[in-house]
Structure formats: structure tokens, C-alpha cells
């Protein structure tokens, strides 16, 4: 079966490209959301031929700037570890995507084709192991820079990450006790169906305490506000003070990809992964025609909505600008109308799906829901960052050791009691 031979390569490519594609969007969202939360407009000046896309072009300008900058290496650094740090930061944050199941397993001619790059039975352990590797990047960078400040930053980061690793691991134990498996696809599959017929049976509803601890710990693991002490920009003690140009960009990208990866892990473990709420895989496959119609229909509806917004935007641009920027809305409107026409065409001329077609449609719908959940959680990351102030170091340690770990142990105990009472543990 050729599909079995080439699908792993395709999936590796998808798993690597998905976070890298989300990265510029994430950086754009960070700027724009922070601006809107603070009553500012955010970036909107950089343009290519007048197309500004509300500031997306700034990400491209950033890349050009960072590549064109001088790549400084301070004279007395340990150059091997100094160079290794940024590469590790980016590389390790990309790895968790390799085992996130992007959709339910395809069945082609009796052969099962898993839609993930690496099929591992110990998925959760792998994720935890890889996340702990992240601290090496920070420690290498902090130590090899030969700078007391970056060393301090690296030390603080190491202490923080090691502390919160415990909470991260323990918070998952309760969930594993319920799921009775470490395989990520199996965990996602178990989150289908409903609780009491109203709530989707996601782990977030089964393990609310575990979810809370996991989310707090993943914030600390990704060095994200309110736990971004390793970076500590206002105290100027960060592990990457000595880095410039693309090496700094690698840390930057690594941080954002770690956020996207963390969101993917949270979505998979607690928010149902690729599960479409109230519709399991079999039901989707039976109704694949309907699903495809709904997908095309909602795309068309979205295009109509976008066109209305763009027409209002065009009016504003015509009043404001006299140069090439005034035509932006019209160009975008053309693209949107083309897309909408394509969606309508797809809706009208949809062929009858074969069994394989049904499975592919199902996979696409499930993957859309997974990406949607990831994006929502990414938004949550940004939202928290622009709301909360940074923790003090002792508060951070107190929260980690004295609150989260006891709570995680309590969660394990409660889960155990519940399992014994409802007789699911045996």
C-alpha cells in the first residue's frame, strides 16, 4: 500500500509546518490583541504595494530586520553551547507536534493510517520528557553567555521549570487514571460522547482541578506571563541578553512555538483534541456529505460577512488615504469574493463521496476543530499576558511548591476515590 509508505513523510511535514505557519499569526495576534486591550490601534503601517492586512506585514518586516542585523558573538563565550542554546530552544519546542493526533485514524483498504507523525503508545510521557528538555536551552544560553545577568536568568529559569515540572506531571496522573492509557489518540477518542447528555465528555469537565493545575504549570513551563521571570525584561536579567540577530529570533520563535505547542497539548489532553463536540467519528463519516455542505456553506457565509466588513473598511480608506493604500480593501474584497464563489461552486457541484472521500472530509473537519481549539487557547495565553502582572520570585516558588503540588496530589486522591466509588478503576 503506497499510502502507508508516504503518509509518515507527509505527516512529518504537516507536523513541522503547522506550528511554523501559526507562528506569524501568533506574533501578529500578540501585538494586535495587546493593543486592543490597552485601547491602542496596534501595528498598521508596514505595507507591500499598499496591502497592510492590519499589521500582518510587520511580521515580514521583523524577519527582514532580524536577518539583516549583525550576529554578535561576545569574545569570551563558550561558543559551542552559546550556539546550541537557540537551536535547542526552537527544535525542542517543535517536537511535541510530532505526536499530537491531528485527526482520527484513517482506514484505507484495511490498513490503519494514523494522522500523526510519530505513533507512540507513551505519548504523554514523551511530551513531559520533551518539555523538560526545554530547560537545557535556557541553561546553556544563560551559562555560555559569560554574563552574570544571563547566568542569573538561566538559574531562575531552571529552578522555575524544574519546580513546575512536578505540578505538570502530577496534574496529569488523575487524567491518566481515568483514561487508563498514555496513548494520545486513545485519550482523544475517549473524550467523545457526552456527560449527562449536555456537556461534551472532555477531560476539562472530568478533571477541572487537574486542568487548572496543568494550565498554570504550562504557563510556567513556556516562560509566559505571569511567570516570565527568566526573561524578566523590566529587571533586565534574562538568559538571552547576549544574543542578537537570528539567534535571538530563535529564542523568540521558540517561545511562541512552545506556546502553540502547549495549546496543542492542552487541546488534546483536556479540550477533546480533534473531537467535534456531540459528533463522533462514525457519525461524521456517515454524514460526510452534510458535513462537507456545512463546511462550504459556512465558508460562503464567512465570505459574505467579510465582504460587508471590507466594504465598510473601503469607505474608511477612501476618506483617509490618497496613495496606493486606498485600494487595499478592494484587492482583499476580490480575493474574498473569489473564495466565496469557490465555496458556492463547491456547494453546488459537490460529487457523491466515496468511502475514502468521506474519511478525508471527516479528517479535515476534525483537524479544523483541533486548530480552532489551539487558536482559542493561544488567544487565552495572550489574554492572560496582557492582564496579569509578573509574580515575584518567592511568590512563584510558593505557588508552585506549596499550592500546586499539594492540589495535584489532592486531585489524584479525589480521582482515586471517585474511581473506587463508581467502580471504574477495576
Amino acid at each position, binding site marked *: 500500500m503506497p499510502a502507508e509508505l508516504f503518509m509518515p513523510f507527509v505527516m512529518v511535514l504537516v507536523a513541522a509546518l503547522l506550528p511554523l505557519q501559526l507562528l506569524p499569526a501568533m506574533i501578529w495576534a500578540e501585538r494586535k490583541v495587546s493593543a*486592543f*486591550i490597552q*485601547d*491602542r*490601534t496596534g501595528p498598521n503601517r508596514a505595507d507591500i504595494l499598499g496591502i497592510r492586512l492590519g499589521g500582518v506585514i510587520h511580521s515580514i518586516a521583523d524577519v527582514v530586520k532580524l536577518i539583516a542585523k549583525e550576529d554578535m558573538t561576545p569574545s569570551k563565550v563558550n561558543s559551542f553551547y552559546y550556539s546550541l542554546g537557540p537551536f535547542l530552544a526552537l527544535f525542542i519546542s517543535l517536537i511535541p507536534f510530532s505526536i499530537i493526533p491531528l485527526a482520527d485514524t484513517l482506514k484505507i483498504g484495511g490498513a490503519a493510517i494514523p494522522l500523526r507523525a510519530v505513533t507512540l503508545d507513551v505519548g504523554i510521557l514523551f511530551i513531559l520528557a520533551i518539555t523538560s528538555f526545554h530547560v537545557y536551552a535556557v541553561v546553556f544560553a544563560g551559562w555560555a553567555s559569560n554574563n552574570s545577568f544571563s547566568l542569573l536568568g538561566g538559574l531562575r529559569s531552571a529552578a522555575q521549570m524544574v519546580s513546575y515540572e512536578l505540578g505538570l506531571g502530577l496534574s496529569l496522573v488523575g487524567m491518566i487514571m481515568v483514561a487508563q492509557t498514555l496513548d494520545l489518540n486513545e485519550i482523544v477518542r475517549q473524550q467523545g460522547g457526552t456527560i449527562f447528555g449536555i456537556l461534551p465528555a472532555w477531560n476539562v469537565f472530568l478533571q477541572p482541578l487537574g486542568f487548572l493545575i496543568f494550565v498554570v504549570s504550562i504557563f510556567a513551563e513556556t516562560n509566559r506571563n505571569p511567570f516570565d521571570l527568566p526573561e524578566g525584561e523590566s529587571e533586565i536579567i534574562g538568559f538571552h541578553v547576549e544574543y542578537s540577530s537570528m539567534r535571538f529570533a530563535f529564542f523568540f520563535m521558540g517561545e511562541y512555538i512552545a506556546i502553540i505547542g502547549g495549546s496543542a497539548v492542552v487541546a488534546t489532553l483536556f479540550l477533546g483534541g480533534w473531537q467535534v463536540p456531540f459528533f463522533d467519528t462514525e457519525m461524521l463519516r456517515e454524514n460526510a456529505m452534510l458535513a462537507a455542505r456545512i463546511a462550504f456553506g459556512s465558508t460562503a457565509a464567512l465570505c459574505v460577512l467579510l465582504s460587508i466588513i471590507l466594504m465598510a473598511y473601503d469607505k474608511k480608506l477612501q476618506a483617509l488615504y490618497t496613495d496606493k493604500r486606498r485600494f487595499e480593501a478592494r484587492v482583499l474584497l476580490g480575493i474574498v469574493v473569489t473564495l466565496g464563489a469557490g465555496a458556492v461552486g463547491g456547494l453546488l457541484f459537490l460529487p457523491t463521496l466515496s468511502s475514502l472521500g468521506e474519511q478525508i472530509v471527516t479528517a479535515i473537519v476534525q483537524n479544523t476543530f483541533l486548530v480552532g481549539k489551539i487558536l482559542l487557547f493561544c488567544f487565552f495565553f495572550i*489574554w492572560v499576558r496582557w492582564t496579569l502582572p509578573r509574580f515575584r520570585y518567592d511568590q512563584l516558588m510558593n505557588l508552585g511548591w506549596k499550592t500546586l503540588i499539594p492540589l495535584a496530589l489532592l486531585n489524584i486522591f479525589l480521582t482515586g476515590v471517585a474511581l473506587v466509588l463508581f467502580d471504574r478503576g477495576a
Partner: protein
Amino acid sequence: MMIGVKKIGKPMDIKERSYLFEIARGMMTSIRHFIRNVLNQGAMPTLQYPEEKRVLPERFRGRHRLMQREDGTPRCVACFCCQTACPADCISIEATERDDEGEKVAARFDINILRCVFCGLCVEACPCDAIRMDTGMYELADTNRENLIYDLNTLLRH
């Protein structure tokens, strides 16, 4: 006198120490701002500056101008009041005699706008209402310093 420590506020209770409720309140505040600004971007106070400009108040002090009499000659009588009043020492005047009436008149009237602090004391000091700052010009940037020393003709033109 003893220096006492005044404790303001009460210690945090269990609800506040759990962070969760306070964090939720903070998050609600920021999402409220976010939603409001997404739905109505025009309501944000930001001006798209070079395209949109602020409406200046009537008494805004901009670049100086020198007033003219009805016959087109400068009102300035070179009394040096403005030069004396100027705290930034940016005005320099050279006086000369006027041909017909024997009155003094400025031969040179230079304002070094790089030094000017836009305080308006020269306008208050002027006995003849010859100097005003009501042009509303504030985009005075240039690429060389010589262009920013305005002479008599430049000041009279506006």
C-alpha cells in the same frame, strides 16, 4: 515624634489569596476593552497622524509670525521688548531708521526656532501687537539647522 507605620487596607482573605476570582475579574476587564475596541475601532483615541490631524485649540501657540500694517510695512518698531523677554534667547533684532517718519524699524529679525520654547512671552511683551504665535504651524522639522532660523521675510509671509 515617633514614626508610625500606617497599615492601609485589610489582609487578604481566602478568596483573594486563591487568586482565581481576582484574576477572573481582571480578565473580564481586559476582554471588555478588547471586545469594545474590536467592534468599534473608530472609538479608539488613536489618530492616524499624518493623514488625520488633531483639531488645535484656538489659543494654541505655534510658529511665530510678524504682523503688517495696512500699507504692508512691518508693525515692528524694533523696541527689543520681545528679545529682552525671551527666556530662551532665540530672537535677535537689528534696528535701523525708517526713511519717512524717523521711526525705528527692524532691519533684521531672526528667530532661531531650535532654541524657542514656545512660551509666548514675546507675544505678551510686544507693545505694537507685531508678533503673534497664532499660525498653528507645529510641523517644523527640517534637515539642516540654517533653514530653521527664520528671517524677517519668512516671518512676515504668514
